[in-house]
């Protein structure tokens, strides 16, 4: 993208030069790309924003098994980054720095570990980027809630997953938006 350039001071009675007028247009386009990650010519009206969440209690995450969280709905979906047909992944369609935040709300089980991490382009431990949380869960009957947050350099088409793990000894369910909530937000922040 072109760098911003100094503004022209136009003067009454003088014909404005094309280059000075075009400079305004270039600056507007650069501001648009800094703000949204897209050129003005794309007809953009927002930066990338997606927030899938769970609407029903469930998941049945097996004990001691790294598991992808699936979501049921989304509160925002600029660029169609989340699809019901692929409910575990969020795919940004703009290169740039993205802010990723996620929450897992666990049903109550025996005190043991609860983990949540954000992974890109894969669903193994090695795909978890520098963003994870491990907590000892509160004893039953308390639901455990934990969050993670990071800013990452993400290329268009990269798939983002939220991975969870627990070792309570039984399958564990995650809570929906009416019970503290299990969600992920993926928001464009700055150009590549």
């Amino acid at each position, binding site marked *: 993208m072109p760098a911003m350039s100094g503004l022209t001071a136009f003067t009454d009675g003088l014909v404005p030069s094309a280059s000075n007028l075009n400079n305004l247009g270039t600056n507007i386009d650069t501001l648009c790309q800094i703000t949204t990650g897209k050129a003005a010519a794309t007809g953009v009206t927002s930066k990338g924003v997606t927030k899938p969440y769970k609407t029903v209690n469930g998941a049945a995450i097996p004990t001691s098994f790294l598991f992808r969280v699936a979501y049921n709905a989304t509160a925002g979906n600029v660029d169609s980054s989340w699809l019901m047909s692929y409910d575990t992944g969020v795919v940004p369609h703009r290169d740039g720095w993205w802010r990723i935040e996620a929450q897992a709300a666990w049903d109550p089980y025996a005190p043991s570990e609860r983990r949540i991490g954000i992974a890109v382009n894969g669903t193994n431990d090695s795909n978890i980027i520098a963003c994870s949380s491990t907590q000892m869960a509160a004893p039953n009957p308390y639901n455990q*809630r934990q969050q993670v947050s990071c800013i990452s350099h993400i290329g268009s088409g990269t798939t983002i997953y939220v991975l969870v793990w627990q070792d309570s000894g039984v399958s564990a369910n995650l809570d929906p938006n009416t019970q503290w*909530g299990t969600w992920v937000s993926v928001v464009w922040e700055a150009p590549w």
Partner: protein
Amino acid sequence: MPAMMPPTTFVDSNIVRQADLNNYSTNIDTLCQINTGKKASTGVSAKPACKLILSGNFSVPTGGATGVVTWGSAPYNNDTMWSSVNPDHMVIQTPGWYRIRAQTYWGAATGGASPSERATNIHLNGLLDPLNVTASSNLNMSGTASVTAQVIAFERLTLGAAIYVGVWQNSGVAVPLKPNGSWGTWFTASYEAPY
């Protein structure tokens, strides 16, 4: 809001068309709304943001219903989202996506039980726990010492939406939330993207 449009390429010695100049204005106004949630004609100069802090210790009783934090002042409040008349919540004046954060610094539960819970919630449009809770942290304390919790939410908020910080603990004794100067208890919300 109008979508952004491609900038015109002007050519020397050609007459500048009104539509091309107006295109610039429309694009500037759209950029203004993407960044701030408001039109240029409102005279906006910043995106909506608010930060609330305590003016002293805030006591959280043990057990019972989730309590709501009452804030003492707003060091930053450029969209009149908070008023001391209703000091326990912010009210959204500009619809949009907001990043909301809260920190609670819990003082020692002197004489309290261990283990016990410290919960910090961000509530949207109501105080029911968990129905109105949109983001939450609960810490399972293995002692009675001080502890800090942070919670993040990212929400699509309409005009008039109300956001609160809820707190709950079950140490067996009242526990104070500490104000700034003692690590701090605070609540922020800032506009991020158009509704």
